């Protein structure tokens, strides 16, 4: 049986190695496959956080559906390895700005003892079971839930419209 710390270190190593390779691989197919690794690592982290349902959804939606979509588009476009994207001064500067941003995010995170102190004290602890999540989704978060369903519909219509081949007689 894996101890929780071991599991955390293992899964976070998987996620970080996957993420580094997503950013550095020149072949987009390789980047997409490393992205699967990163997603699976994050799914493992969800499990160590006690959110089994989210881990399963992460594997199904991200590692399944979204990755298939990425690979499908890459194969459809028949892309070669992208030419070397050199490190210009502007890009080096933007990477420096990235490092500064991350440091600014990480510093208060590293000092955060517990986020619980700011929370409302007398609320019942609801474990992240499917039943509890569903009851929150359909009571407290019913309006955002409906908005998200509308968002998905809009995204679907928009995607079909954007990807559709224009007809001969209509201006592009």
């Amino acid at each position, binding site marked *: 049986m894996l101890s*929780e710390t071991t599991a*955390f270190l293992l899964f*976070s190593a998987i*996620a*970080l190695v996957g*993420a*580094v390779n*997503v*950013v550095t691989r020149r072949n987009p197919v390789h*980047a*997409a496959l490393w*992205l699967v690794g990163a*997603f699976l690592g*994050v799914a493992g*982290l*969800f499990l*160590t956080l006690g*959110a089994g*349902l*989210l881990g399963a*959804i*992460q594997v199904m939606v*991200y590692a399944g559906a*979204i990755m298939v*979509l*990425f690979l499908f*588009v890459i194969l459809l476009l028949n*892309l070669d390895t*992208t030419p070397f*994207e050199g490190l210009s001064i502007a890009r080096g500067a933007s*990477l420096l*700005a*990235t490092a500064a941003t*991350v440091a600014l*995010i*990480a510093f208060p*995170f*590293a*000092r*955060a003892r*517990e*986020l619980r102190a700011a929370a409302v004290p007398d609320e*019942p*602890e*609801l474990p*992240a079971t499917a039943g*509890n*999540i569903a009851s*929150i989704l359909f009571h*407290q*978060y019913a309006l955002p839930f409906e908005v998200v369903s509308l*968002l998905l519909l809009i*995204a*679907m219509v*928009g*995607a*079909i419209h*954007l*990807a559709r*081949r224009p007809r001969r007689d209509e201006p592009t």
Partner: protein
Amino acid sequence: MVPQAWYLLLSALLFGLGIAGFVARRNTLVMFMSVELMLNAANVVFLAAARDHVPARGSACALFVIAVAAAEVAVGLALVLALFRLRKSVQADEVRELRA
């Protein structure tokens, strides 16, 4: 129990890798993958912050993030397809019509 700060640090690192990929890469597909990494980092924060408080609520929020990510990928990849049809390339550098 793994301290919450470790999870937060890890998510900051994942988010940073996402930003780095987004600003340093010019392949629009890889840029979208970097955005997915950033959204995943946000989910780690949601679940880590909710772990000791109301875990089910954190899961519900993360579920919304996943739905938004799915919608973003669908529209984004449709945009990449339309761009490729117009330019025969997916490099972000080659689209500069709006530049003065």
